[in-house]
């Protein structure tokens, strides 16, 4: 038994981080966007980032995803320094090994393009040139996100909000990215639709071994999805740790306030 025990933690220690962030800061003039953020994200791990509006969590996410250039700090993805990388390579990574799920499907989908075309775009962007194969993959992914394959040629504008969000997820995951950034993915959805999406995301994370950086203000969502949690306030990380530990035994005053402010149902 001792041998087996050594094994599971050795495995944990051995695996290098997929994403390493050190001293990341972004300023808007004299205002702090986010300041001195450091963390490691490991393969298969979901990191939740919570905080109120203006806490810097969205700024942090957009810096991580390369949508904004931070003022200080470094990001290493899979051993590669994201800032030393030429833009073409960074964008190639962004559409193959990384993905970004927006809060509003309108920002993440092409509303004038069919569901199949939306899913196929990333495949074609990385060189897919066989129509039949692209369509087959698109059908497979529609099934995985529980959208009827018969809707493959419909435009997302004819879909419900929950379907649009699931389509956005399929569109992002079709190239089997290893790292997915999610900005309030369950934000604008009805509660029952949220539940289905959460279940879907959990299954995909587990089955595909995805690493996820999940930004949300919904503590119930992070409890169900995130392994680890980072709490932000005024651009700073005030507390981080195991998700249920941070939520059930918060150490920082701000986290205590945040947790105790949630309405119980």
């Amino acid at each position, binding site marked *: 038994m001792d041998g087996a*025990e050594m094994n599971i933690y050795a*495995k*944990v220690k051995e695996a290098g981080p997929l994403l390493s962030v050190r001293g990341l800061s972004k300023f808007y003039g004299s205002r702090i966007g986010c300041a001195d953020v450091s963390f490691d994200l490991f393969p298969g791990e979901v990191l939740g980032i919570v905080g109120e509006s203006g806490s810097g969590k969205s700024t942090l996410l957009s810096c991580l995803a390369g949508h904004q250039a931070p003022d200080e700090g470094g990001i290493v993805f899979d051993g590669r320094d994201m800032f030393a990388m030429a833009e073409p390579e960074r964008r190639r990574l962004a559409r193959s090994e990384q993905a970004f799920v927006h809060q509003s499907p309108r920002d993440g989908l092409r509303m004038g393009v069919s569901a199949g075309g939306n899913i196929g775009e990333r495949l074609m962007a990385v060189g897919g040139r066989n129509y039949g194969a692209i369509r087959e993959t698109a059908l497979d992914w529609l099934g995985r996100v529980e959208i009827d394959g018969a809707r493959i040629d419909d435009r997302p504008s004819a879909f419900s909000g929950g379907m649009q969000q699931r389509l956005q997820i399929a569109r992002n995951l079709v190239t089997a990215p290893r790292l997915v950034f999610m900005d309030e993915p369950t934000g604008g959805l009805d509660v029952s639709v949220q*539940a289905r999406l959460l279940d879907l995301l959990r299954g995909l994370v587990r089955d595909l071994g995805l690493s996820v950086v999940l930004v949300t203000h919904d503590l119930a969502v992070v409890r169900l999805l995130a392994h680890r949690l980072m709490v932000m306030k005024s651009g700073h990380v005030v507390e981080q*740790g195991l998700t249920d530990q941070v939520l059930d035994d918060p150490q920082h005053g701000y986290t205590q306030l945040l947790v105790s402010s949630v309405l119980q149902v």
Partner: protein
Amino acid sequence: MIMLKDVSKTFTLHNQGGAVIPVMTGVSLTVAPGECVALTGRSGSGKSTLMRMIHGNYLAASGEILVGGLDVAKASPREILALRREELGYVSQFLRVVPRVPTIDVVAEPLLTLGTAAEEARDRAAALLARLNLPERLWSLSPTTFSGGEQQRVNIARGFIHPYPAMLLDEPTASLDAINREVVLGLIADAKARGAAILGIFHDEEARARVCDRLLDVTGFTPGLAA
């Protein structure tokens, strides 16, 4: 298998003038493989707090909490996740699941995270639910709308689906009828027989007497309550 050395716990209430409340101090205990130890003490004496610390859910203020080879008090979140995934089972009183997920999948999930094939995981979940007399027509429904006793059995199935070498049981028989209570006691006996170290809270004295090897009164660790 489970060993605590001089563990203490305090809560600091930053939003109430920074009041520091000591809730446990000087906890030391050992649970050997194949042994079942019951925590006793009146309500509020810190039994659940102690269990939560061992589970890594509450941070210990000081001391060592060894489960297998890992010191939970100092372990990284990733090590605790690995511990929970492979070595430390937990049956809580509360069911916390994604709404709308079928019961059978809720029960099979711990196996899926361990990499068990989906079909085998579901088969084992089905066998366990059957043993716990949960009607098969409920398996495809989400447990969120179940009665207390049904939810309790789902929780137990989830906790016993993998042969964890260490287990924490919080009131496993609380809302069960006599038949199902027998089933659960049987599950605990089986776990002991395969060498699991079990720490539990049992208000059900008869059940406690049947499966537990020792009792441990936590009142002695609770500042202000200790005699």
